[in-house]
């Protein structure tokens, strides 16, 4: 069975109709929508496609960071109204080059974000359950922050690139947002549930942080009338992290390879055996 973006819902009622099922082959890296222990407990393997979309997702992280910092969406609207003789003060953006980037979650995607930001001469900090090797840190130009608070205090841009798990749910809440700089931007490309949305709304409204750029929300899409939709300082995209033709092709290819290996009892390349985290 191939799954993508939570469809179909793999629950006991569906599995009970598929006695010959050998594998649930998921498109994408995140498997938080699948009850992996339950499915594997039924003797069915679960696979994912971690490498297929990591470059595309890292590109979107950089896009959101730049677009928010330089107020691209607002600027585009201003250009369409050609009566403006002088650029409004509110279009003035914040500098990306030379700023400090804090990456939370230094898995494959987080590391690619570090690689991309190096070219912008950014100071790169990262926080992860485990520290990367010295060589990896040197190549990525990244410095480990054992304390999340330390990263939050020092960063101009905070990018969240963790997987969703019990210990990352609500990771960024009132407390964490209050540790951030007032001029800082929060970028989330992981899952909406990693960020407490109510806390985020309050932080933005009060100026505790400058702006937020979210490729993911919870729910998706946000209900109309949600306060995040009304804030000028928020940029939201509809989970486009893996949305390029090239990424989808790679993902599809990997889904097929995973499934074929599972049904022919060969070693499965991307088996998810337990909770998969960065």
């Amino acid at each position, binding site marked *: 069975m191939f799954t993508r973006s939570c469809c179909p819902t793999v629950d006991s009622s569906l599995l009970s109709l598929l006695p010959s099922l050998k594998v649930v082959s998921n498109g994408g890296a995140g498997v938080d929508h699948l009850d992996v222990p339950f499915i594997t407990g039924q003797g069915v393997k679960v696979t994912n496609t971690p490498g297929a979309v990591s470059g595309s997702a890292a590109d979107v992280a950089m896009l959101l960071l730049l*677009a928010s910092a330089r107020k691209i969406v607002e600027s585009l609207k201003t250009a369409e109204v050609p009566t403006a003789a002088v650029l409004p003060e509110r279009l003035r953006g914040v500098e990306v*080059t030379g700023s400090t980037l804090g990456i939370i979650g230094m898995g494959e995607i987080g590391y690619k974000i570090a690689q991309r930001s190096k070219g912008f001469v950014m100071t790169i900090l990262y926080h992860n359950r485990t520290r990367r090797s010295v060589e990896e840190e040197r190549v990525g130009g990244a410095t480990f922050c054992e304390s999340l608070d330390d990263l939050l205090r020092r960063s101009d841009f905070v990018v969240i690139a963790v997987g969703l798990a019990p210990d990352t749910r609500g990771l960024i809440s009132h407390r964490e947002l209050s540790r951030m700089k007032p001029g800082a931007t929060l970028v989330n490309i992981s899952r909406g549930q990693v960020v407490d949305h109510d806390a985020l709304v309050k932080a933005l409204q009060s100026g505790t942080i400058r702006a937020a750029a979210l490729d993911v929300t919870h729910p998706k899409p946000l209900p109309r009338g949600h306060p995040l939709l009304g804030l000028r300082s928020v940029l939201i995209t*509809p989970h486009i992290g893996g949305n390029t033709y090239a990424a989808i092709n790679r993902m599809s290819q990997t889904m097929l390879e995973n499934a074929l290996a599972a049904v022919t009892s060969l070693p499965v390349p991307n088996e998810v055996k337990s909770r998969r985290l960065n």
Partner: protein
Amino acid sequence: MNLDRSPSAWFCVHQSPPWSFTAFNDFPRSSRLRVAACTRLVSTPESGSSRAEKRDFLRDPQLYGEKIQAMFVWDFKPAAEASLLSSLPSLKVVANGGVGIDHLDVPYISSLGVKVTNTPNVVDEATADIAMALLLASARKVVEGHQIATDPKTTHIMQCPMGEEVSGATLGIVGMGNIGYKIAQRSKGFDMRILYHNRSRRSVEDEQAVGASYCQKIDDLLKQSDFVVLAVNLTPETTGLISQRELSLMRSTATLVNISRGLVVEQDALVTALRSGKIRAAALDVTHPEPLPRDHPLLGLPNVLITPHVGTNTYTTTRKMMRRWYKMLWLQ
């Protein structure tokens, strides 16, 4: 040139945003400037420690004109034309904020015995950042995505906009000066294959540092690139550099990004190319004129992003420009 730096030295400016937030506090304490604004003053926050006194020059040009020794130009304003310069007999320097000075008639201004200065280098990074922002914004359809996500009618996300891959794509940089080179440095991190075309070739060391390959012929660059970024100065040679011929050499899946000057591109040819699908999309921080007339066809095309010349528009870079502006003045 001996610029009078005494406390009563006068400077002429156009009332524009940077002044309202710096309030002259960035200038050295030792100087005391009097400023005549060339247009009507809009309300500006008066800083408690501001040492500048602002007057409306146009209300009484005869009174203030002969006192003005330096003119600051920001966002092409005020226009340094005969009609203004003839009322500034003591003018010694036209100090431009920004690196491009194609809007100034330098031979004419020089013939009056007036120097022209600009602010090179300080704008390079912010401009390179905007080139990358526009490239990514166009490729990954951020505007469309944001509209879908925030549209009052959106209840389900049925179809997300599919974008073009940036990682691993081929980038062609036309104009490998300081800004072009910084664009190359930034795109290297995206594993892009980088081609460049320039009047002169960069050193082997420079090329290797960013992994860029030289294309002596612009045609070769245009044929191979997924993204073409224009980062040239506007000169007689670069005016209309990209016209129908060049656009027809580009890939139908390619994106054109322009951060140089609007006149580098023949806009009518660009409109035709975008409408016919000859190229996929364009992202322009510069047009001609700026802003475009309301009914201009570029404004109506779904595959065009236009920003109102925001290449240097950050707090940090604006401050750097003003300090450099002032320093160039002080060195005269």
